[in-house]
């Protein structure tokens, strides 16, 4: 696949040395990076061809990611829990040349055979669907904001630049050992953890689900982990259980969703020896935007996501008066080049290098305070869900003429959403068909709790 394009900020040797040091907690042995890189090159895809990588967290995923990139391909990692129908649709949208998974059924992707690539298998997709992009770029899907069939296109060197800025903001160095238990298809994990480890020389330890506090503590102790990143959901779990952070941890970052200031304060109180960083970012921005070093701040700032990284400029849309919330605009040389695939409103480029976040902020003395979201998504069981994307999907089903989402909370305060669907024809059959399609196509967090189906009054829609 090798060819012209954006230069990579690392060479084969750098990557091979880095990967040799990666510790995979879930999988021992397996093919070496040289074998994987050779197999990827033998796929014979043109430079700039997107390759979907649907593998679980671990060394195997990282081997594949870097092998595709070094061969001139454009890697796009997606959750291995994604259904083949959805992967096939995404592959078509981005013009992918191959899908790599553990045990793919080629017929589900329009292919005929599988080809071994290391310990995984590739289905080379029919050439008629392929669209060639530019070598040295990467596609990143976002869980909630890009929709079901789109991804953000970034230069690989800008992701590395963002990783360096993140490392500087949290003091990550070659003396650190970074534990990854967030999914590597999250932009935060691949950039702020994997790429940051690559460029700083930190050691990487990769784990996977299910998360268990005991396994987490054991991994930190056994591998002398100094740096860890958790979602607010897991941080709250640890607080609720009264579990202190494992001994030996130097720093913890928490991000990916809003964390309440009182939880930040409690995390600090329970773990006074651990540096605590609250992070904000979005895949479209590259992804890291701002950092709060909570251990150096008074409690009054624990509700903030801190100050922008070096090289990142923020402003509020419309330049409102001080103290007023408005949509945050992020300007940086790490912002995505474009969105590829099905587009939707929110989190879009408003100019080259400037992205509208869809998030409401106020800025106080340079510190960013999250006030809410403009964009149409919710966090369900720790996963960001684009309600717009769910509605779009359901409205694409046969006989569906209308779909609305209703967000609620149960008695325990857990967020859920329900669907109300208007159909033509019989509602019982439609309900079964919609439920089957939703269960088969959407990820677990994206599935509505209840689906109400009623016969649509077509006259209502005839304006």
């Amino acid at each position, binding site marked *: 696949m090798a060819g012209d394009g954006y230069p990579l900020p690392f060479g084969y040797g750098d990557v091979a040395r880095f990967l040799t040091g990666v510790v995979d907690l879930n999988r021992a042995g397996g093919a070496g990076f040289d074998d994987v890189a050779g197999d990827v090159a033998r796929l014979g895809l043109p430079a700039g061809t997107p390759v979907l990588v649907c593998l679980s967290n671990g060394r195997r995923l990282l081997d594949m990611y870097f092998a595709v990139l070094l061969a001139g391909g454009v890697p796009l990692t997606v959750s291995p829990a994604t259904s083949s129908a959805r992967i096939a649709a995404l592959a078509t949208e981005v013009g992918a040349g191959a899908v790599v*998974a553990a045990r793919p059924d080629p017929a589900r992707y329009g292919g005929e055979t599988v080809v071994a690539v290391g310990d995984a298998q590739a289905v080379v997709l029919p050439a008629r669907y392929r669209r060639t992009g530019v070598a040295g770029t990467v596609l990143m899907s976002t869980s909630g904001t890009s929709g079901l069939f789109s991804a953000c296109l970034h230069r690989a060197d800008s992701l590395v630049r963002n990783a360096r800025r993140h490392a500087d903001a949290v003091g990550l160095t070659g003396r650190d050992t970074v534990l990854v238990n967030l999914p590597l298809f999250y932009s935060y994990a691949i950039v702020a953890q994997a790429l940051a480890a690559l460029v700083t020389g930190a050691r990487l330890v990769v784990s996977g689900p299910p998360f268990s506090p005991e396994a987490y503590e054991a991994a930190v102790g056994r591998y002398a982990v100094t740096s860890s990143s958790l979602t607010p959901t897991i941080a709250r779990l640890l607080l609720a259980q009264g579990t202190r952070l494992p001994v030996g941890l130097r720093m913890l970052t928490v991000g990916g969703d809003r964390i309440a200031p009182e939880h930040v304060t409690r995390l600090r109180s329970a773990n006074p020896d651990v540096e605590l960083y609250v992070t904000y970012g979005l895949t479209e921005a590259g992804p890291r935007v701002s950092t709060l070093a909570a251990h150096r701040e008074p409690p009054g700032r624990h509700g903030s996501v801190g100050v922008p990284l070096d090289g990142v400029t923020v402003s509020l849309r419309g330049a409102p008066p001080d103290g007023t919330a408005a949509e945050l605009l992020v300007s940086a040389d790490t912002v995505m080049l474009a969105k590829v695939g099905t587009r939707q409103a929110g989190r879009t480029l408003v100019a080259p290098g400037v992205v509208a976040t869809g998030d409401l902020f106020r800025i106080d003395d340079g510190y960013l305070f999250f006030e809410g979201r403009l964009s149409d998504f919710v966090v369900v069981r720790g996963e960001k869900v684009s309600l717009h994307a769910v509605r779009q999907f359901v409205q694409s089903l046969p006989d569906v003429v209308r779909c609305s989402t209703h967000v609620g909370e149960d008695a325990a305060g857990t967020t859920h959403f329900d669907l109300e669907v208007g159909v033509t024809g019989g509602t019982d059959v439609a309900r079964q068909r919609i439920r089957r399609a939703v269960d088969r196509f959407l990820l677990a967090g994206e599935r509505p709790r209840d689906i109400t189906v009623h016969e649509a009054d077509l006259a209502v829609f005839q304006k």
Partner: protein
Amino acid sequence: MNIAASIRDILVTDVFVEVPVDEMHDDDSLRDVYGLDSLGFVELRVQCEKRFGVTISTDDFTPENFATVGDLTALVDRLRQDTVAAGAQPR
């Protein structure tokens, strides 16, 4: 249906794993081969509790016990025996 067969059925019916039941093996990794993510493991835990009438505690909800179909079968078997020993009736 024995425990392992029931777990394979749960994987296909409730967790929506696309690997056909007759191509599943006891030593297949739930994460690496079947692609379970964090919510997939939560769903598998809940469905096993319902199907087998056992409670899978947080202490037992570990990567080791949920590594393969075989590992999970062993866990459910142990929990069912514990349930019987406690005088309750597992399913």
